[in-house]
């Protein structure tokens, strides 16, 4: 029987825990930060590197490595910006952390700031997350009042300020360079890379952009030590991760599991199986942009590398399950509509392609499909991938290509009947 491995959720799963500073302290909080402050900042980075922590935002890039790329001795301030613009459809894990255990996350962020030598950190929260924003702001107020944050971090001689910045609800602002543009007060447009944010990010200063869950994991790494943390997961995929399980399962929700547990086990045992005793049709394993897996393809370990090997990606660990009655054309149309709506419009293939694909899919839904349109849809979808400035083009492309590949018959169902 698969059980949750509670590291980040240990407080949240404790009955009576309410996420306030008091209860967090009672649960042993703010112990890792003092530990970090006794270390050199390079030592903290080395520890995170050794723990093998990989970014939980979607790409799975090693966090320690990212931090070590930060430009040094530039004469400019450096910044840690937390990407809390959780907007990939299906993903809702960061909200849990910010809402229910903000201090655990903030402690990780403070450790990160210290490791990077930042004296000001920004938390860019998705605009629609009103309760989470409220909870974060309250937690920050408490921290300032209790002297945890401010010119003397935990009463020491390191000064740190954290600011919550709310986005305005654009998916593209979850892309790190667009997020930085938005944070600077501009229109959120992905930037040309290089220069990467580690060299020229927020206000052209060295900047690291990290996900909420990633930073929360830093607290755990400091607490447990690198080896214990590494042992939690599978090789090269250290630690636990929060899985947002949604769709046609009996118990949808956010679960914390060790990296590398079986994908089918998560659905069957944590999710309680497919709703209404129906058959599983497919799974989108890492947020709406990841290629879909058919029911017979999900007997894999759920970590970055294994899902990648299966031809998809784990992304932000958002599992969307759909049963045998699901109309995948409708599903794909809904996904395409989303990317059409959220494309920033800079790059030609994404701006024109997302809309074109949506129009083609609408044709299918109106029983106006054809073999030609199917081929065209495939071509339009494929051509968006890898040809744009940021990953939104890929995100719009992957579902189309994979749905057409995995469920071609479902589309034929919508071919125009000659009248």
């Amino acid at each position, binding site marked *: 029987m698969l059980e949750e491995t509670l590291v980040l959720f240990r407080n949240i799963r404790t009955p009576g825990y309410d996420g306030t500073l008091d209860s967090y302290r009672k649960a042993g909080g703010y112990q890792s930060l003092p530990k970090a402050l006794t270390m050199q900042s390079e030592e903290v980075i080395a520890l995170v590197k050794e723990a093998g922590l990989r970014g939980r935002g979607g790409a799975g890039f090693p966090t320690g490595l990212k931090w070590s790329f930060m430009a040094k001795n530039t004469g400019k301030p450096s910044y840690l910006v937390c990407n809390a613009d959780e907007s990939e459809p299906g993903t809702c894990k960061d909200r849990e952390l910010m809402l229910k255990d903000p201090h655990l996350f903030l402690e990780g962020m403070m450790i990160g700031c210290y490791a990077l030598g930042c004296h000001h950190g920004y938390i860019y929260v998705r605009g629609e997350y009103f309760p989470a924003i409220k909870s974060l702001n309250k937690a920050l107020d408490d921290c300032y009042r209790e002297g945890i944050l401010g010119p003397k971090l935990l009463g020491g001689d390191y000064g740190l300020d954290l600011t919550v910045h709310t986005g305005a609800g654009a998916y593209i602002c979850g892309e790190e360079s667009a997020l930085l543009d938005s944070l600077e007060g501009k229109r959120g447009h992905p930037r*040309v890379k290089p220069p990467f944010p580690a060299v020229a990010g927020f206000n052209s200063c060295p900047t690291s952009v990290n996900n909420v869950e990633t930073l929360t994991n830093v607290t755990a790494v400091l607490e447990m030590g690198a080896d214990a943390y590494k042992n939690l997961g599978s090789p090269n995929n250290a630690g636990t991760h929060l899985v947002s399980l949604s769709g046609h399962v009996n118990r949808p929700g956010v679960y914390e599991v060790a990296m590398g547990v079986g994908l089918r086990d998560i659905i069957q045992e944590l999710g309680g199986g497919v709703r209404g005793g129906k058959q599983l049709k497919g799974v989108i394993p890492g947020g709406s942009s990841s290629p879909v897996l058919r029911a017979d393809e999900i007997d894999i370990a759920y970590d970055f590398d294994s899902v990648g090997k299966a031809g998809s990606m784990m992304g932000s660990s958002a599992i969307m399950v759909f049963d045998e009655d699901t109309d995948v054309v409708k599903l794909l149309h809904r996904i395409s509509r989303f990317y059409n*709506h959220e494309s920033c419009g800079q790059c*030609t*293939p994404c*701006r024109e392609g997302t809309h074109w694909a949506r129009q083609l899919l609408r044709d299918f839904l109106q029983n106006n499909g054809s073999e030609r349109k199917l081929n065209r849809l495939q071509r339009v979808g494929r051509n968006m991938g890898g040809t744009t400035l940021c990953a939104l083009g890929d995100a719009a492309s992957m579902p189309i290509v994979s749905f057409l590949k995995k469920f071609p018959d479902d589309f034929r169902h919508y071919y125009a009947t000659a009248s």
Partner: protein
Amino acid sequence: MEVFYIDDQPVPFEKGEKILSAALRAGLEIPHFCYHPALSVVATCRMCLVDVTDLGNGRPAPKLMTSCSTDAMPNMRISTKNDKVQEGRELVMEYLLVNHPLDCPICDQSGECTLQDHSYAHGTGHSEMEYNKRVYGWRDIGTFVQLERNRCIHCSRCDRFTREITGTDEFGMFNRGHELTLDTFSDRAMTNHFQGNMADICPVGAITEKEFRFKRRAWKLRKVPSVCTGCSTGCNITIEHDRNEVLRLKPRENQDVNQWWMCDEGRLTYQQMNEREQRLAKPMGRVKGKLLQVTWQQLYDAVADRLEALKPNGEQVVALVDTHSTLEEMFLLRRLLQEVFSSDQVFYSQQDWAQPESEFFIETLITTDKAPNQAGARLLGLKGSQEHDIINVMKSAKLLLVLGNPFINEQSLLDLAGTTELMVHIASRQSEWTDRADAIFPGQNYAEKEGSFLNKQEYWQRFWPALRPSRHVRPEWQILSELLHMGTATPVQQTPQFSQVFQQMTSIEHKLFGNLALEKLGESGISLADLRQQSDTLAQTA
């Protein structure tokens, strides 16, 4: 300099330079829309994709790279012609045309449209798009340029232009995805003085000049390099004309003078070149108090006769010169007074001038001195009106020569002109002087003649004739040469060449102009400071 290879051709590059800019400098063509050398790189049109077959370390790039944003590396190998690149371009072209109205037959940009060119060169010629095209509402963004958003390919050059070049920030991107549109903020009209440049940098017909709208097809236009006469900056321009009519002026790149730009005021000076009503079209002489049309020979003879009778001494001869006149004309006028009348009383309207101080270079293009050649008058040693009392000198004048239309706002001078025994007006346009003149020599305007100007920074630039002038008018330099010969010897019958006049000027004033031959003063001109340095080095080595 290190090199990388484009299709096996070595291309030198500077450290940190991008593939596209190095390629363009080397004269190689990589199709692009959003890249402009003056603007920041956004890499969004995706047209400049190239296949990097070797990153310089033996490994190929995993996918097609945008050459505008990829650093050139030593020994990099790039293919711009292989199938992968062709396919990439076809794809971008197809996407760009998905919502483009393809209204080329009624589009002013047609014929000089980058989208059209690239579509022919790199497109597939057909589209699988079968849905209605996107249509934006009609918007008026001001007096100078026309916005036609349906044609827009969202390269954002205009947006970046107002942000980075003029700093006026009037343009912006609105909405998202396929509804993205470029427009002015809050329905306001454009206010900057450089809007014409937005039409120039717009790769398609989304922004076009209202002045040029529906006047001529672009491929009909013939182009002649010239210099703007709107102010003392002397922006390098191209006169675009057809059927002996100037249709528009476009800036010509010159990094030392105007970079890529010119102001809207300068663009409108084309109207003066086509001006007919105020034009002095035929030689005229005053007979019994009335101005009558005469032949050139009659006019020369009459002037010679009058001078014979007057015999003015040096003090009694005054010349007023417009700072719109060319260097050669000023030189000849000065020489005429010196050699024929032993006078040095050539006056020009001296102006204090200023240009805005701004962090944006383009602002400094508009100066308060609205004449192109004040620096030339100063350099040739003509007398400035601020330092000399012209009124007193004029009181004793018997012969007054007026070149162009200077001092037309100075009533006292105009009044004194009526009292001189002989007043000669050499100009292409009528003015208050014309009414007071005894002999009128009709000249030619900038679009018709040759000449050179010295701009505010003593940058020396020449211009070429574009229009065919009427057979009744002669260029001022020719009139002045003829007057000069008339005074010294028998009237010259043979028409002088402009190059001879130029050669005379540079050899007599070799200290100023370093004996430069006309052919050496190319399309981009030369700074006098540089010229002096060159001749100094030459003198030293000799």
